[in-house]
């Protein structure tokens, strides 16, 4: 293929470096310095996509992030697929592979074009709205259909080979945009000594200077840009971030910048010869001051068939010619309401192609550029506009007519000009997006015919973003604002840089013009597109206003205007103007437009950074983790902890199932001795003269008399009287306690204690510290526990010396230990706490001595079965934030007569917490012992009752007990304690109904004799 639209000279490309690339399966060649868009235009590729709704052919319409049509799927390999890339922002590299996002499988002969034909009636305005109002099942049908037809881009199905990261940055002044205003601002601030970050979304810094016809200090404007960038690059206090888009402005000057580090070189970092490097980076910048110098986007005019390939915004013509040496056509017609568009005519003519005419809506334009065009022999048609484009795959002509903008009618005869390119300009829209991300509404300015940013604390505006357009004024504004920002950031001496000389041009004022009237009424004229990406027409907007949608926010939702990946950068203002015309109001009366992050689509990689795969969420291991791994444990996630779930053995060459392993582990504890790694239990060290008083206030039970050496189980409620955590607390010394919490509750309980201490009772002298990770905890439990322990410890284990709920200090396996006689299994148990780094030594010593007792490691599943057999609750499983200690039958653990009104006491005296019919904890014994009830299953009293049945409670814990040789469960049941012996029913979703008897929560050893030996 030849680059038929490439000029032999000019542009900022490197003609000596040819890059080959593939678009929609076809091979092309471009040059280093091209974007994918400029290379496609150079190769004369007219159609890049099919439109979303009508399946119309679409070509490149712009040259920047506002591009609505040239949205491509990028990536040579499956793993490197990137959807929603704007061809105008993608640097060309050798071997680039891209496809138009829409128009599967071929943009030229789209098999889905019948969708478009159908589209007129199939997808009228309000389609989504109306569809959502229809039965949901229909939406499922539509949705599949639309997605396939519209091809909204797709995620890769293979893992991304690249890495991404986040970088936290701080600076005094962050300048967003490196056009004339941004460069001047950055230089002013930097020269004052401020730490400056300057970011720009393009491959090269300079913005509009890079395609400007103007000179600065007598040299081309682009030369000044190069010189300033070079100076900034040499300053130690300046960070330049090209190829970096400021995508989100957040509270307190927190700005997210996305830097593309290898995406301009190849589709993977490795492909670019930069293996292991970061492909894209998210800079999280906390800026002292932000200078927003994001410039403006040119608005196209809205006329009939303005979507046919060959219709572009005028400024893009200049960009392609002057930056890339590409003229995207032969014969040009321009339609404009302002002087700036004449630049495109002059550039086009100088490139050696024909300018058929400039059609200007104004009666008597006389600006310098206008006169320059006339002097160059270009035909200027005034008081007129392009009413309609002709052609289908490419523009073939422009229908030009005189118009009356006040009355919105055509006034003359239509003249058809033969051409292949129509460039339109309806003026400029400041890029206010970031200034509205925190909710500040942009303000309409009649003199500018555009929205400018509202006031944002900590943010300064420079150049086009607040309507300063003329080059000289822009430089002055940038220089002043840069200095102002530096002063605000504390650099009091900051002064504006000296502004170079720029010739002042005479301009004739821009007229207000958005939609061009057509000789046919708007609803019958050929389609006039407002939002090209979402296929929203002027007629659709008009229809929406007729259907009663008056606010632009409603019109947008009804028509989907601005809801594409481009967020309506080109179309929003035109849409508002059309709504305003139809409603006979002004634009600001119709509403304003607020944007949300992100400014352009961001890859998930950049958002996620390193927080994926192994680093997605930290995993916490106990000191014994390696042993568990080596002994084949299956693990369960408990919060961030990895806890052994069960330890399957090989029996007769077969690996045990979970059921078999758990049954074996349970019986080992009940008949011999087992061991559990309980290190994950939360441990809080509490010290201070008021520690005891404090415990009395946060626990429901009494602590005044707990002597050193003793342990007590405690319940913790919130002030609403509902249980929030439980655990044992040991008195280590008169003013020193060790509290244990549930594994999941550890951090929350510590914060809870701090909250009450710091905010309610700061007069109490008490201090809290988490010691969860400092101590490893091993539970040795079962009838043989004492025998085993006696072999490894110097502690006197005599039952009279070391009673149930005592703790002792001594040595276990030769290292200092605290041993607690507490039991979560109902068996004789010793909880050994040792410093975590001794844990493995102690654990292995226990196994060395334990072999003769068949010491059996058990996991959380067995722990659950054993504790449930004893009716011991797990907070968060058997309780849910609406359960009081009384509901659990734990009256014995509530000290109503304590002197201080402890947390939860007042609430427990409400009539509601005393109701007899509250859900109470009970045991359930299935009538069929083989049945293990489903946790969460609802309990009813009458299985014959019509649905909805009266639900009386639900199962909270349910297991199979190898000792009972039966399933058993804990449940909460309304008035449950008065229903002992009754039969209840549990209807299942498959239609079966289980029967169970209401029994005590304690299934084994009701008198507690086994643990107290």
């Amino acid at each position, binding site marked *: 293929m030849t680059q038929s639209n490439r000029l032999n000279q000019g542009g900022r490309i490197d003609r000596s470096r040819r890059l080959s690339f593939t678009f929609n399966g076809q091979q092309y060649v471009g040059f280093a310095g091209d974007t994918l868009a400029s290379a496609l235009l150079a190769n004369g590729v007219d159609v890049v996509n099919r439109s979303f709704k009508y399946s119309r052919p679409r070509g490149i319409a712009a040259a920047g992030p506002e591009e609505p049509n040239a949205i491509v799927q990028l990536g040579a390999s499956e793993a490197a697929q990137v959807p929603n890339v704007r061809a105008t922002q993608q640097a060309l590299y050798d071997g680039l592979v891209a496809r138009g996002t829409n128009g599967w499988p071929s943009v030229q002969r789209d098999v889905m074009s019948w969708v478009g034909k159908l589209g007129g009636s199939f997808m009228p305005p309000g389609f989504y709205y109306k569809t959502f109002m229809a039965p949901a099942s229909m939406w499922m049908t539509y949705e599949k259909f639309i997605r396939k037809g519209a091809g909204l881009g797709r995620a890769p199905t293979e893992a991304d080979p690249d890495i991404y990261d986040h970088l*936290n940055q701080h600076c005094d002044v962050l300048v967003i945009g490196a056009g004339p205003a941004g460069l001047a601002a950055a230089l002013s601030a930097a020269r004052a000594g401020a730490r400056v970050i300057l970011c720009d979304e393009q491959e090269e810094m300079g913005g509009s200077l890079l395609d400007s016809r103007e000179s600065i200090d007598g040299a081309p404007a682009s030369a000044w840009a190069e010189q300033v960038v070079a100076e900034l690059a040499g300053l130690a206090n300046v960070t330049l971030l090209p190829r970096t888009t400021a995508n989100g402005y*957040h*509270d*307190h*000057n*927190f700005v997210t910048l996305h830097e593309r580090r290898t995406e301009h070189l190849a589709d993977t970092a490795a492909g670019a010869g930069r293996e292991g490097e970061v492909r894209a980076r998210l800079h999280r910048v*906390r800026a*002292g001051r932000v200078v927003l110098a994001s410039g403006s986007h040119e608005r196209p005019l809205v006329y009939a068939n303005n979507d046919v390939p060959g219709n572009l915004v005028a400024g893009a013509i200049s960009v392609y010619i002057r930056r890339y040496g590409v003229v995207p056509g032969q014969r040009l017609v321009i339609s404009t309401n302002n002087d700036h568009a004449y630049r495109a005519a002059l550039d086009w003519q100088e490139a050696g192609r024909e300018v058929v005419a400039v059609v200007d809506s104004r009666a008597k334009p006389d600006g310098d550029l206008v006169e320059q065009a006339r002097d160059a022999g270009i035909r200027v048609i005034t008081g007129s506009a392009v009413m309609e484009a002709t052609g289908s795959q490419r523009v073939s002509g422009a229908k030009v007519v005189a118009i009356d903008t006040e009355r919105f009618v055509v006034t003359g005869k239509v003249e058809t000009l033969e051409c292949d390119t129509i460039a339109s300009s309806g003026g400029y829209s400041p890029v206010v997006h970031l200034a509205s991300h*925190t*909710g500040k509404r942009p303000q309409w300015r009649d003199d500018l015919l555009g929205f400018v940013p509202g006031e944002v*604390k*900590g943010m300064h505006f420079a150049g086009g973003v607040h309507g300063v357009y003329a080059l000289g004024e822009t430089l002055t504004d940038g220089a002043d604002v840069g200095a102002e920002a530096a002063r*605000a*950031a*504390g650099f009091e001496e900051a002064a504006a840089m000296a502004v170079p000389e720029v010739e002042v041009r005479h301009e004739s004022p821009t007229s207000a013009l958005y939609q061009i009237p057509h000789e046919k009424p708007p609803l019958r004229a050929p389609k006039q597109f407002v939002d090209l990406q979402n296929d929203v027409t002027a007629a659709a907007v008009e229809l929406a206003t007729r259907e009663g949608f008056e606010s632009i926010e409603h019109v947008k939702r009804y028509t989907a205007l601005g809801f594409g990946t481009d967020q309506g950068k080109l179309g929003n203002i035109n849409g508002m103007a059309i709504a305003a015309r139809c409603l006979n109001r002004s634009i600001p009366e119709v509403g304003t437009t607020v944007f949300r992050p992100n400014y352009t689509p961001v890859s998930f990689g950049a958002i996620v950074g390193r927080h994926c795969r192994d680093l997605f969420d930290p995993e916490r291991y106990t000191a014994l983790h390696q042993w568990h791994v080596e002994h084949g444990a299956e693990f369960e996630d408990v919060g961030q902890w990895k806890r052994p779930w069960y330890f399957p053995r090989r029996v007769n060459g077969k690996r045990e199932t979970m059921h078999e392993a758990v049954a074996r582990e349970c019986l080992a504890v009940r008949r011999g001795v087992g061991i559990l790694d309980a290190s994950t239990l939360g441990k809080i060290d509490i010290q201070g003269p008021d520690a005891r008083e404090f415990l009395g206030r946060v626990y429901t039970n009494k602590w005044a008399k707990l002597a050193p050496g003793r342990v007590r189980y405690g319940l913790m409620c919130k*002030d*609403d009287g509902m249980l929030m955590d439980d655990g044992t607390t040991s008195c280590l010394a008169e003013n020193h306690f060790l509290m244990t919490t549930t594994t999941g509750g550890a951090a929350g309980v510590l*914060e809870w204690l*701090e*909250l009450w201490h*710091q*905010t*309610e009772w*700061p007069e109490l002298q008490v201090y809290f510290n988490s010691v969860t990770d400092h101590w490893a905890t091993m539970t040795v439990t079962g009838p043989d526990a004492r025998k085993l322990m006696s072999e490894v410890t110097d502690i006197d284990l005599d039952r009279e010396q070391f009673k149930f709920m005592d703790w002792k200090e001594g040595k276990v396996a030769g290292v200092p230990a605290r041993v607690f006689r507490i039991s979560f299994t109902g068996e004789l148990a010793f909880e050994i706490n040792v410093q975590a780094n001794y844990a493995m030594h102690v654990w292995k010593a226990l196994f060395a001595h334990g072999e003769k007792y068949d010491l059996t490691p058990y996991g959380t599943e067995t722990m659950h079965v054993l504790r449930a057999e004893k009716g011991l609750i797990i907070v968060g499983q058997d309780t849910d934030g609406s359960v009081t200690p009384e509901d659990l039958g734990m009256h014995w653990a509530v000290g109503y007569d304590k002197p201080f*009104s402890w947390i939860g*006491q*007042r*609430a427990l*005296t*409400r*009539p509601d917490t005393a109701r007899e019919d509250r859900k109470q904890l009970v045991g359930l014994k299935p009538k069929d012992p083989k049945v293990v009830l489903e946790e969460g299953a609802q309990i009813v009293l009458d299985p014959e009752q019509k649905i909805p049945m009266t639900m009386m409670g639900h199962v909270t814990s349910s297991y199979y007990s190898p000792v009972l040789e039966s399933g058993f469960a804990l449940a909460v049941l309304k008035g449950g304690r008065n229903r002992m012996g009754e039969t209840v029913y549990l209807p299942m979703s498959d239609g079966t109904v289980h029967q169970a008897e209401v029994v005590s929560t304690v299934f084994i050893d009701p008198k507690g004799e086994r643990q107290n030996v």
Partner: protein
Amino acid sequence: MFHIFCPYCQEYREEEEFHPSGQAHLVRPADPASVSDEEWGDYLFFRDNPRGIHHEMWVHRLGCRKFFNITRDTATYEILETYRMGEQPSITAANAEVRREQGVQTADGGWQTVGAQPENSRLNEETPS
């Protein structure tokens, strides 16, 4: 993302280190047994939800673990001041306009009046809303 000055650490830190903990200056009845169920319910469950000035409690969870208070504008998300537990806000819904006119906000680069101390005792007699 907020940039919050911890009045204990005396530093600006990122919001990720902090956690909001609800409305500030809630007073737990000194003798809970003596209040009615309705009053107790008000204390437990009823909170202000103003558009504008709001006093709220935060905790420097991944820092000094201290609880402190913030005066924040819920409409603009501007943090007007941060102050220690036991101190009273210097900016309240009642005096915010006056304080703004005085240009009260901020030392230190720009965002928050920190460690607000009662400059004017009258301001502190008002019940913060």
